[in-house]
């Protein structure tokens, strides 16, 4: 597990626990967001991501644990700094723009009157690509524009960190990718520390310096997107983060034997080997050990499902030009594989 830490971490949360009645939302949860980084908190719904946001922003007090923001203790025994003094900007799912204020009123809301409010509002609206829209009202804006106003409003008072909760989930698919790269571009250009919260793996992997995977109230792994994808701490993270095949085998003397092939392994005993579909290459082979069962063609690539004699099923992601039909005999070459001890597989 890679845990990047410096002395001026934007957020450092330790041992956070929070229950609602019988439901455990946070369970001794640790999270570090390095200064200047873009971190994504990723997890299935119902794992406490939003509770984490609410605790960090000060909308909710944890039962236990501490939170420091840029080295200042904001939550801890006897300490609970109210949200308005935390310098944590928040962009929520439905943007929560003030309906009674125009764009300039929304963006300038967190600025004191004597701070040169107008100038700052104009500047930040320009940065988010909405110059001249200050007099519009929220209901007159498109979804993507509302999104940028919410971002501008959160960033205007120059917070130490901004937290964005599922910020792209209200946009339709075509708009989504575009708005996402625009927003990330703005955040990176301004050097703002940002914590995104999402349940969308692709989104998390594509925008972040680090991804913190959360499950059942705990951070199970925090790593760079690439490390996370290829070196998950357990099969659950492995399959949550992307498509994965699992093949069982026995590992001994640095090698693991499976029906699909032999791989390097430092483990001993029963193992489960994770193979990403894109690590599988197929070769037509009349005497091959596997048979093609089905094929899903997506255009930019395709998924071909093959089955071995013992019933083991493997999915391979292939380029669009290869042609296979059900019943074809094939053999498979595996480029990369990650073995896990079988103990964890029960999860």
């Amino acid at each position, binding site marked *: 597990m890679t845990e990047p830490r410096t002395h001026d971490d934007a957020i450092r949360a330790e041992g956070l626990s929070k229950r*609602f*009645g*019988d*439901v455990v*939302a946070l369970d001794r949860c640790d999270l570090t967001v390095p200064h200047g980084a873009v971190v994504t908190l990723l997890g299935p*719904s*119902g794992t*406490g*991501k*939003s*509770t984490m946001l*609410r605790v960090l*922003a*000060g*909308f909710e007090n944890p039962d236990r644990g501490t939170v420091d923001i840029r080295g200042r203790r904001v939550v801890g025994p006897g300490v609970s700094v*109210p*949200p*308005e*003094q*935390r*310098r*944590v*900007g*928040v962009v*929520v*799912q*439905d943007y*929560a723009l*003030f*309906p*009674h204020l125009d764009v300039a009123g929304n963006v300038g*809301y*967190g600025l004191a009157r004597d701070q040169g409010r107008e100038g700052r509002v104009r500047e930040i609206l320009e940065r988010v690509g909405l110059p001249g829209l200050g007099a519009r009202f929220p209901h007159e804006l498109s979804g993507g524009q509302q999104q940028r106003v919410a971002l501008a*409003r*959160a960033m205007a*008072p120059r917070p130490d960190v901004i937290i964005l*909760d599922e910020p792209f989930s209200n946009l339709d698919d075509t708009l989504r990718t575009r708005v996402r790269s625009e927003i990330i571009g703005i955040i990176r250009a301004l050097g703002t520390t940002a914590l995104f919260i999402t349940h969308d793996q692709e989104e998390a992997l594509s925008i972040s310096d680090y991804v913190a995977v959360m499950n059942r109230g705990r951070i199970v792994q925090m790593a760079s997107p690439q490390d996370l994808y290829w070196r998950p701490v357990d099969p659950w993270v492995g399959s949550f983060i992307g498509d994965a095949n699992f093949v069982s085998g026995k590992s001994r003397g640095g090698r693991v034997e499976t029906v699909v092939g032999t791989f390097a392994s430092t483990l001993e005993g029963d193992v489960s080997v994770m193979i990403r579909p894109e690590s599988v290459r197929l070769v037509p082979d009349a005497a091959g050990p596997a048979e093609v069962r089905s094929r899903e063609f997506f255009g930019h690539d395709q998924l071909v499902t093959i089955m071995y004699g013992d019933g083991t099923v493997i999915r391979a992601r292939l380029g669009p030009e290869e042609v296979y039909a059900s019943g074809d005999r094939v053999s498979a070459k595996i480029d990369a594989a990650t073995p896990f001890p079988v103990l964890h597989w029960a999860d």
Partner: protein
Amino acid sequence: MLDLAGRPPVAEVPAVRRPKAPRLLWALGTLVVVPALIPIVYLLYVVLQPGGFDVGGFTSARLLELAGNTALLTITVTATTAVLGIATAWLTTRTDLPRARLWSTLVTIPLVIPSYVGALAILAATGNSGLLTQTLQALGLPGLPVAEGFWPSWLALSLWNFSFVHLLTVPVLKRLDPALEEVARGLGSSRWKTLFTVVLPQLRPALAASSLLVALYVLSEFGAVSMLRFDTFTRAVYTQWTGRLDPGPALFLAGLLSMGALVIIVFQQRARGKAALYSNRPARKPRLHRLTSGERMGARIFLGSIVTFALVVPIATMLWWTVRGMSLGNTPLTVGPHAARSVFISVTAAAVITVAAIPIAILAVRYRSKLVYLLESVAWVTYSLPHLAVGLAFLVLGVGMFRPVYQTLIMLIIVYLAMFLPLSLASVEAGMRRVGPGLEEVSRSLGVGSWGTMRRVTLPIVRRSMLAGAALVFLSVMKELPATLLLRPTGFDTLPVRIWSATNELFYTQASFAALGLIAVSILPVYFFVVRDIHD
């Protein structure tokens, strides 16, 4: 996720995320509902107490006759208002009738005429000295006898209540999914067949809700039936009370009446629950039904005669009496003090009740629980009880238990609070829902404290809803007759009380002065907060 902007909570952490409400909020919320609880408890006690209650000289035959009359009126008026309300709503929203919006406004305005003012207009238009009689006689036709009994009562309650059905049906008609009609037409169904088999059936929930509202109103109506001398329960309660020193029999009848209302409330609650399913707005505008020129003429005659009888005739009648009275040396200034009292008590009640609704509204929107639901239900039940029964309960209890406030303005305000709290409650809650906790939290995270957030975010957004609620309370208190009649301080005659007493003494000129004054004061708030709102 917390429930942002009224969206259903996302699965994140289930309903257990519910912070505890501050004790002070609970205390205040409970306190303002106490007045509403008093009549419910007392009337139940009166009806259910062991050993029965003194029913005075009432034979069971007489009770049956009263019940029969009340039921007859309730059923016929409810049916008539349903037909009028739906026909006017459909013609003004779903056909290409020119000036549809103006027609819709015109058929909504009769809301400012309380049924008892309508009754006054009917009385003042008929009989030997009535406007209609004199007009007919001038044309060489026989005049009209004084209107009394069932038919005039039916007419008054139908004409001046169908607008409720219109108001509740228009938004539903506007939101019906046009795809359903297109599918029906595609399946070979004609325009008119589509109307009756696809469009109208979808109105059932809205119709059920508004019909029960009208039924409840007719059941408890007091002024019009008394003035038009039709023997219903309410009239019997009042005659019984004025005729005897012992209020027992009147109270018992009032209790029975309230039980009838409770039955209707139960139905109404069910109908309302279903109605919510139909409130999603489709992306497209519904297609308009093309009227042939003959149909268009028919529609104009139909709407025109409704407006004539519900609006033009009563106002013309009262104006005529006013002018006639003034030419005989009467001056409308005599109702000045009544108008001042009405405005004073209505404004005070609107302010008090709006403020009183705030704690429960906060509890209901932010700390929803079974207990809050119970508090709200108590308020709604008393709102739906006949005002005469509520007034009588407070009167009898007041003589015995609340001596210090009995027959004071404080007592009157408390009674209005018991009767009208839900009006402002519903509005303030709707406004609070628009704020959503998300907005307040975002404000806090932008560095603004809780008071600043209240001042800069919550209040500005809730203000319009609060004003709308206050306007509704103002109008209701302005028109309220039976409870005011029973509980007002000696000499504190309001406009409705003046209309009531002058009509009963056949002083139609004085009654018309007061009625026109009442309409004039009510018309602006009705227009701004009721009529205009349904078209936005």
